[in-house]
């Protein structure tokens, strides 16, 4: 038996098909994964993501500690609540995990809230603790929180109708990629779907009541299956599939998250990344579209005529596009065409920017 979120019994009552995800029993879907996907793109839906790990970082050295730990630079967080996406690298420049960090407190006296992946919790915490010894910081895992995502074009408006006046005001005022506390809740305008929406942390004891409020208001429950197709359409990486400790951010379409300046900031993995960057020629993570019928899946072989081979890292059927899309790691010189092997046959692929759908609009 896996770990359970406070909503486990409610998921079963709602007819969820449960699966193991990183050691947690989580809902895959509540009937139709494709319908849930469309629901988020067209209206909104709620996801239980309480399996994710929340870690608060405070203390006099909180900022220099995270400037050492993360490839992106928390000094870029210049307004309260502002969020930053970053990779946490090992010395070889491989990705230990990807995470979101919010600025808690003030710019002058900063504290931070990190949200890391569930499946990587143990190694992340071990790594974070091992590198905290030379800093005056305190790490506190917030397993007292439940975490919901409400995502979709109507997510903020519909959620605001169900909460207190002050939380409703906060929901209306939040800027994209900003999260702020209200009482014991923490409400952020972030997500993993390519749509507007919220991620809400609240005390675990309030989780069932609030989830019921959302469902009672007609907001659809969405499982991990649709979460995966939504993030894939949005071109957002999944840790363990599109990136891992063997791949650097440069090979994961995450070069934009590496803060090279200031040049004296010695984040873990910097030297290795700089060597790769200067050498060039490292593989790239791109988007691919299968124009024929079929479904792209992780680990299918991709070949690029005259250049070399790569592989699909995440593939699925895109409900929005009605065809199969994928992320693929391919040789540096890949241009706009490639081929994929599916069950012994080769099919043409169109190579695109790895962002297929955002805010309900098709980008490719």
């Amino acid at each position, binding site marked *: 038996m896996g770990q359970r979120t406070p909503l486990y019994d409610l998921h079963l009552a709602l007819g969820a098909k449960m699966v193991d995800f990183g050691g947690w029993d989580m809902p*895959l879907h509540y009937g139709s994964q*494709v319908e849930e996907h469309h629901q988020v793109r067209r209206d909104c839906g709620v996801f239980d993501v309480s399996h994710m790990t929340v870690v608060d970082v405070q203390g006099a050295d909180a900022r220099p500690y995270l400037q050492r730990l993360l490839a992106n630079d928390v000094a870029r967080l210049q307004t309260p609540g502002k969020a930053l996406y970053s990779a946490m690298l090992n010395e070889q420049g491989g990705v230990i995990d990807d995470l979101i960090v919010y600025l808690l407190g003030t710019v002058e006296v900063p504290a931070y809230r990190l949200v890391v992946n569930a499946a990587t919790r143990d190694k992340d915490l071990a790594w974070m603790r091992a590198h905290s010894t030379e800093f005056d910081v305190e790490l506190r895992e917030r397993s007292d929180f439940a975490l919901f995502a409400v995502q979709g074009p109507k997510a903020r408006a519909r959620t605001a109708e169900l909460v207190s006046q002050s939380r409703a005001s906060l929901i209306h005022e939040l800027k994209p990629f900003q999260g702020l506390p209200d009482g014991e809740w923490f409400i952020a305008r972030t997500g993993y779907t390519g749509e507007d929406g919220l991620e809400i942390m609240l005390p675990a004891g309030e989780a069932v009541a609030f989830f019921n409020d959302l469902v009672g208001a007609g907001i659809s429950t969405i499982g991990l299956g649709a979460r995966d197709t939504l993030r894939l359409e949005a071109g957002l990486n999944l840790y363990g599939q599109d990136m891992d400790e063997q791949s650097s951010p440069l090979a994961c379409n995450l070069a934009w998250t590496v803060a090279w300046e200031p040049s004296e900031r010695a984040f873990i993995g910097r030297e290795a990344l700089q060597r790769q960057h200067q050498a060039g020629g490292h593989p790239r993570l791109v988007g691919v579209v299968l124009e024929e019928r079929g*479904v792209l*899946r992780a680990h299918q072989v991709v070949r690029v005529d005259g250049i070399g081979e790569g592989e699909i890292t995440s593939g699925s059927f895109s*409900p929005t596009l009605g065809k*199969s899309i994928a992320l693929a790691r391919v040789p540096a010189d890949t241009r706009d065409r490639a081929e994929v092997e599916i069950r012994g046959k080769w099919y043409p692929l169109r190579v695109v920017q790895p962002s297929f759908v955002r805010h309900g609009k098709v980008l490719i």
Partner: protein
Amino acid sequence: MSSIPADLRYATSHEWARLEADGSVTVGISDHAQQALGDVVFIELPEIGKVLDAGQEAGVVESVKAASDIYAPVGGEVIAINEALADSPESVNNDPYGSWFFKLQPSDASQLQKLLDSAGYQASIDG
């Protein structure tokens, strides 16, 4: 609970088979199979004229989640395929026993007797 019509025969690999009045055998996948697969998005069917052995790979059904092979429940020649599934693969989810995949002219109709009846199939998925 999945539906298992009593007038069909079943393979342990989750295909259903129906003997038609003209001696042909119509093949699809069971309600249990479509539930396990989830939303079906693509189906690869065998070519007409292909001769299959019982248990031989006959095609592939892909859901959002995974690809799954389909097998010929009895041996024979493929004499028809359901082209409509190409445009509406979701009909396999909505109506698994109406959404046939292909028809075989069996080489040995007695092979049908080796397939499970509805009670046997129920027992095999409960097991």
